[in-house]
């Protein structure tokens, strides 16, 4: 199972969402879909569309900046981070 690390701020928006979750391998898009099936609302917060992350949401797979199509394998660590932004 791949490990997903989620931003604390997301937990304030999605009831019950943990900081870490285990998911099946696939792509980043499929990982987010798995999370959304278990904790509805995650996808709306992270994705601008089915094909794109929101501009200030950064996803890293095994330390490398990822996109929705990036593969996630069973040993991967996926980190979802909120970029420097706001004012």
């Amino acid at each position, binding site marked *: 199972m791949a490990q997903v690390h989620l931003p604390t701020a997301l937990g304030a928006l999605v009831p019950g969402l943990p900081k870490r979750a285990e998911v099946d391998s696939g792509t980043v898009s499929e990982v987010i879909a798995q999370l959304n099936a278990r904790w509805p609302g995650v996808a709306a*917060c992270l994705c601008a*569309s089915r094909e794109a992350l929101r501009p200030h949401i950064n996803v890293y797979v095994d330390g490398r900046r990822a996109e929705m199509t990036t593969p996630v394998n069973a040993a991967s660590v996926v980190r979802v981070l909120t970029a420097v932004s706001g004012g």
Partner: protein
Amino acid sequence: MVLLGTKKGAFILESTVGRKQWSVRGPYCQAWPIYHTVFDPATKSIYAGGGNAWFGPGVWRSDDLGETWSQSGEGFSYGDDGPRIDEIWHITPAQGALYAGASPAGLFRSEDQGKTWQHVASLRAHPSCPQWTPGAGGLCLHSLIVHPDDPQHMWVAISAVGTFESTDGGQSWMTRNKGVRAEFHPERYPEFGQCVHKLLLAADGKQLYQQNHCGVYRSSDFGAQWEEISAGLPSDFGFPLALHPRDAATLYVVPLNGAIEGRYVPDARMVVWRSTDRGDTWTPLTKGLPGEHAYLGVLREGMAVDALDPAGIYVGTSTGQLFGSNDEGESWQEIAAHLPPIFSVETAIVEG
């Protein structure tokens, strides 16, 4: 209660019927930028629409007068080929449903108290949509009226686009900008492209008013024709508009010095202007408002009335002051001085 949307969350201010002493609580909604906070008297819920830089547009709901909140952005999308939605600008509860206006402009409807939202695609299907061009405030749908006696009869207003009317519950839309100037446009009176800043329907259900980038206007035929009523005001430029809760002839505006002159109150004196004759004549209201060195601005949703008698009037500034009057504008007090920039002001009467 006075409900505020600010750059750093929603706030709730509470008082008794006399409206002299106020308490402030907030910020709510994780200090998101909140463009509109509104009370639904039918369900006693509070809704707050906004969006933050990371997680996008959302509507927050509280069923306990602000103690606890839940958020949903489910459905705020124009599809994979459409523009990305950044914020929710306006929420209107209407006869069991909720409507939300977004930026870039579009209309959404919820039938489950804001848990999920459906795009009302007819508005962006209007033939003018490809030519909608944002102004400095973006392309926000900030005014949304559902006629209280006829839910099929609706109006929306979009900055830098203008006013639309629907008589079939939002299935089709017609531009309603005749008689409204657009001085920044190559045509002075185009079919659309007018920069409406606030659109409201009076208590009689007949009289429409709008504060525009280029003047204040009234329409007595549901928007088919507009008549300018700016004469007597110090400027034709301003953002907010408020209407008396019972008298359709009484309205309030806060003119600013001009679109390219700094956008603060003329001569740095805070003045609310009132008309009691549908805009034929205007009276300045100043008692208790700062009379010098007041470089204040008020945004599109920044003024509201309450339904008490005499009516209360509330004005929130883009630098975080909230002024209130408990006597229809005759006298004012500063209710709060150091809030975040205020985007919206609404009121609610709650039995306590």
